[in-house]
């Protein structure tokens, strides 16, 4: 059996997988510090990507530089959202917070065409970091160098973030805020700052995810990250929001399932139509089997 076909599928999935893992971590960070599912995550990251695209296409700046600017903008936007809205809405319940993030989607989708000229293009051709034509060829398999860039960036960022979470003072404060905000505040942790920085980091990671993602896909609208975001939510449920690493592993599982089903589809062409449905179906069954997530802890409810 030809092994290279499988590898080609795996390599095709790698860039979205990197984006998915970054987005999942961002969503987990916000879920644990603000107790809400941030539906606006995709749009915030799209803003970062739009900054990068605007500066490359309109001003002709190199992508490496503008990517950093885009990430910084998303960082600031994330922080502003927390400072302006969520800090003031402490008495809003969990579902209310979800609705606020939904309102943010409409707000940003409306604002983006006013700020960015590129938003009015039909589709935006963003050049990846290294042109897609430059490829590493091993036998029958060819891997674009750009994929390595995305993969390397994701691994470096994830390792950095997890080391910081475990070893740094910031990480300790985040973990304390996540387990109990009020007690963390009583212990002298400035939970407001921690929450704001969590939002900012989530925005920045999202922007990196979006830039990796759109280097390999067409960038058509502010809602380009929606699929990634839905995968990220499901990954959170699959891994369990109780830990930080659970959702990330969940994201990897979802995208690897995609690869596996894709490989099966080579042999069973009729299945390819139902590919996504099968992947989501398997995820659903896993979630029903373990409602707390694969790495979740059972919550004991006090009455």
């Amino acid at each position, binding site marked *: 059996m030809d092994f290279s076909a499988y590898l080609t599928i795996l390599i095709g999935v790698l860039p979205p997988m990197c984006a998915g893992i970054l987005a999942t971590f961002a969503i987990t960070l916000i879920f644990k510090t603000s107790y809400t599912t941030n539906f606006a995550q995709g749009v915030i990251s799209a803003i970062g990507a739009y900054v990068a695209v605007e500066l490359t296409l309109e001003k002709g700046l190199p992508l490496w530089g503008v990517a950093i600017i885009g990430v910084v903008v998303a960082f600031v936007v994330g922080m502003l959202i927390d400072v302006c809205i969520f800090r003031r809405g402490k008495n809003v319940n969990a579902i209310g917070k979800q609705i606020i993030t*939904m309102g943010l*989607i409409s707000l940003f989708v409306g604002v983006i065409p006013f700020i960015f000229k590129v938003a009015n293009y039909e589709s935006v051709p963003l050049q990846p970091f290294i042109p897609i034509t430059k490829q590493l060829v091993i036998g029958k398999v060819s891997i674009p160098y750009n994929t390595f860039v995305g993969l390397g960036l994701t691994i470096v960022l994830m390792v950095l973030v997890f080391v910081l979470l475990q070893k740094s003072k910031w990480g300790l404060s985040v973990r304390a805020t996540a387990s109990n905000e009020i007690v963390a505040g009583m212990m002298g942790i400035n939970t407001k700052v921690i929450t704001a920085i969590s939002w900012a980091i989530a925005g920045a990671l999202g922007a990196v995810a979006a830039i990796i993602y759109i280097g390999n896909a067409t960038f058509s609208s502010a*809602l380009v990250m929606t699929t990634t975001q*839905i995968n990220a939510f499901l990954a959170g449920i699959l891994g369990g929001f109780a830990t930080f690493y659970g959702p990330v592993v969940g994201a990897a599982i979802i995208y690897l399932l995609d690869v596996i089903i894709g490989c099966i589809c080579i042999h069973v062409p009729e299945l390819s139509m139902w590919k996504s449905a099968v992947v989501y179906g398997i995820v659903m069954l896993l979630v*029903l089997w373990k*409602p707390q997530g694969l790495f979740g802890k059972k919550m004991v409810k006090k009455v």
Partner: protein
Amino acid sequence: MTAKNDYLVKKMLAEQQKEQSAKRALQIFDKFKHHPVLGYVIFAVVLVLLQVLAKEGMISTSFIGAVGSTLIYCIVGLGFCLLLGYSALASLGTAGFIGIGAYITYFCFAEYNVGVGVAFLLVIVVAVAVGVFVGFISLRIEGIYLAIVTLGVAQIIKEVLSALVDTIKISAKDITIFGMGFEIREVKQAVFFLIVAIMLLLMWVTHNLINSPTGRAMLAMKNSTSAAQAFGISLMKYRLLAFVFSTILAALAGLLYMLYIRSEQNSAGTLFTLSTSLNILGAVIIGGTKSIWGTIGGTFIIFGIDKMFLQDIKFFNDNPTLITIVCGLLVILVVMFFPGGLVQLVKGGIFKLKTLFVKWRVRRYGIEE
């Protein structure tokens, strides 16, 4: 003498009778005045009048079209009101359920041409099945987790449906409603009346459901599942009921949507996506989760206001994205500052007006003895 007495007695009796009947009439009127269904009936009558006026050309067709499509979302909202406001089950699968209804209708009309009665039955049967399935999921998973799982269910439904047929479209000449055929011009009107009738019926059913022991049980379940179970309320029964009810309403809305808009594409591809589910959730929250009128008001704000009013204003017409900005801001502000929804705002406003009136009267006439 006796004749005069007789006459007086008769007159008195007649006056008494008159008074009594007037009193009775007043009592009946009072009963109806406070009967909640009266409001729904008036609402339906107003809607029918709007359609009649539109036919006479006094209201633009785009306005009445916007009202019609908003009413369809109102039906979804009613189901959601019971689900979220009374059972505290947050679901993001709504778009998928609407999609199921729409696709069944498409197959019934465009592929097999079996008419609206069969479509109704099929939609309800499938919706019950799906509702029971999701209801069982809700027994295992709760809160925000449930919202995400139902989102996944909706995603599966979307993938399956779009794998079946890519885009769906019914032509107006295929539509018959309970054996009646219509001219192509009149189809939209007839469907509008159908929507209003179903809407009225569903408002009434929802009202009764909310004010019955079922609604009480759901509220108990919302506040504390453990306490509710201690009082002998079966979680399974009421969660399944809530999901089945809301799924049926969503699927029915899908059916009406296909009859009214007749093409999935007209909604700019937003019919089965996450944003539809989110918008319906937003509409119910903005209006006030525990009120039928609130739900309807919220739906009109989210879905109706841009197409009904703002599009006609030149400023908004030139910058169509401003409408999205306004809607987004409105949602954020309402949730932040009026957690009880617009119903709370309106009720609070009426209460304030009443107190102001009382104060004015006291100042003008002094305190009543």
